[in-house]
């Protein structure tokens, strides 16, 4: 079974406006792949579409992962297949604690058809131990386990909780949507370290890092860099491409694309 994420000629519209205009991209299992692009290029649209947000309408193309066209699956089915999206703007769920939410998510992953959910559920002690370990590693205070998910959290706290969820769910293909936005350098380092630790523990996993700036890529080193502009991948390369963009800005590419 192929654990690469293979996106073919993906077209996506939001409110009848075409945002992605034929994206072709392969994120290989076991690699870290950065997508860079200026504002409005379609980066977040790509992230949301891969996870199955109902507001993003796929008008053409495919996205294959583990033998399935994931565009035909519900968001929860995609999650169970191993996909994970770290949100740029995580949503608050009032009244649902971080611990209860995570337990529900883990148990949903462990559920098996025809089996009593009580049988497949993670034992409470094991869950608590895992949660405590991961929170410590990410420098999240224990009290957060009992707080309502993302309610009243600062931008940095929300991002850490996203990484906590990723660490607990152990996805095989993680998409990080502008995880660096709104983070100061210390928070950025912790978040990046969380991603790197998980990747070291699961070297077979794929990571798609979506970012506007090169800054994050100093801490999460990509194997490949693709540039998204006006709904299309316009350039692919290695880590040196990110540095080139940092130096020259997106305009030089825009001019290149226009004259091509």
């Amino acid at each position, binding site marked *: 079974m192929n654990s690469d994420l293979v996106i073919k000629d993906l077209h996506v519209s939001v409110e009848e406006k075409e945002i992605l205009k034929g994206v072709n991209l392969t994120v290989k299992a076991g690699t870290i792949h950065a997508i860079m692009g200026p504002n409005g290029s379609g980066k977040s649209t790509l992230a949301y579409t891969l*996870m*199955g*947000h*109902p*507001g993003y309408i796929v008008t053409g193309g495919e996205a294959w992962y583990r033998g399935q066209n994931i565009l035909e699956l*519900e*968001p*929860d089915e*995609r*999650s*169970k297949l191993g996909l*994970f*999206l770290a*949100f740029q703007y*995580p*949503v608050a*769920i*009032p*009244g*649902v604690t971080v611990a*209860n*939410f995570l337990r*529900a*998510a883990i148990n*949903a*992953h462990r559920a098996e058809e025809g089996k009593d959910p009580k049988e497949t559920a993670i034992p409470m002690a094991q869950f608590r131990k895992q949660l405590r370990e991961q929170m410590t590693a990410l420098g999240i205070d224990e009290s957060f386990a009992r707080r*309502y998910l993302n309610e009243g959290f600062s931008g940095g706290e929300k991002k850490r909780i996203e990484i906590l*969820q990723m660490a607990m*769910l152990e996805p095989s293909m993680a998409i990080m949507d502008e995880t660096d936005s709104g983070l100061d350098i210390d928070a950025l380092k912790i978040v990046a370290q969380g991603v790197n630790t998980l990747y070291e523990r699961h070297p077979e996993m794929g990571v798609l890092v979506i970012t506007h700036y090169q800054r994050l890529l100093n801490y999460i080193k990509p194997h490949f860099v693709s540039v998204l502009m006006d709904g299309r991948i316009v350039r692919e390369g290695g880590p040196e491409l990110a540095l080139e963009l940092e130096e020259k800005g997106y305009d030089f590419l825009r001019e290149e694309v226009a004259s091509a």
Partner: protein
Amino acid sequence: MTMKTFPPLAEISDALVIERSRAAGEPEWLTEQRADAWRFFASAEPPYWRRTDLSKFKPEQVLAAADTAATSLYQEEDVTDQGVVFTTLAQAIHSHGDLIRRYLGAAIDSKRHKFLALNAALWQDGVFLYVPKHVNVELPLTAMFSMPIPGGAIAPRNLIILDDGASVTFVEEYHSVAASDQAFAAPVTEMFLGNDATLRFVAVQTWGEDVYHIGAQKVRVGRGASVEWAAVNLGARVQHIEAETALEGDGSRVEWVAATFAADHQNLLTAPWLRHIGAKTEAHMDFKTVVKDQSYTTFDGMIKIEHQSRATVSRLEEHALHLSPKARSDSIPGLMIDTNDVARAGHASTSGEVDEEQLFYMRSRGIPRDEAIHLIVMGFFEPVLDRIPNDALRQRMAEMIEAKI
């Protein structure tokens, strides 16, 4: 369970009410009060309520309870040696007649509508709770009311009196296990808090599906006293509850939360009134409603800041969540300010379907849609359930809500 009953309501006369009262050895003032209330009930037209559907309500033939078989009292510790009185009102009338005479009817006007008068005329069930000065009762005291015969009627009368500095948790619970014929509950609860007293009041309504519940509750709050009021409304075919907190004493306060969940064809109305009378009174109200299927709920609230009040703080939150497009929830919040001296008064209200962004977020973590809705609804009610001091009761409420989603 068996219970004695009155004849059908249509066949009762004031002479019978007087006869029964005297036979029970009740004091003359109460006999007169009952007869007077009965005459009002018999002559008054049914109230016209735009949002409470009484078109199928036929109380003429119901058999009202003539004993206290529907009342069960629970306490986890013996509190009598602290001077606390916790017994049926029917019993207490013989031992604490003078105290009852002073307070009975001193909060709620029986002639506001005929069903309150019915309660004043025929009450048998109900509890009397008196907590003396500076006595602190740790564990909750519970009065549970059931519907002992199908198609019956009960009119519990609850009188709760906290002397200065006293504190207690009182739970009133209305429940029937199975569906029955059209039944009728007309309870009235009056609560009085002396200075610096603290009352945690939990009111739970989980009747079966054919019960009409038409009731009233009011608490009068003394100087520096505080109330935590949590209401959970899950049952009944029709509910019409008029509830009031009167912050009379300076520095008195209330934290008032409610959870209402209507499904099928339920028609559940809550009309909470909040009156700021004393200086520096403070109120926080948080009312949560979930509607499903073809149910209909109404929040008909009113906050009144009286002329003599000063430096009032008042905050109202009311939120409704719709689980199906045919369900309906009306919200009619009112605010009357009769003074220039208000410290803070605020109101927030939302109504709508389950948030798609929340659903997507949860589903992106592998949680299936149905379960995500469960979690969102439970989370929505969490601030209310969190206020129920009794673990077993909280657990039971959570399970009933779960089952209803």
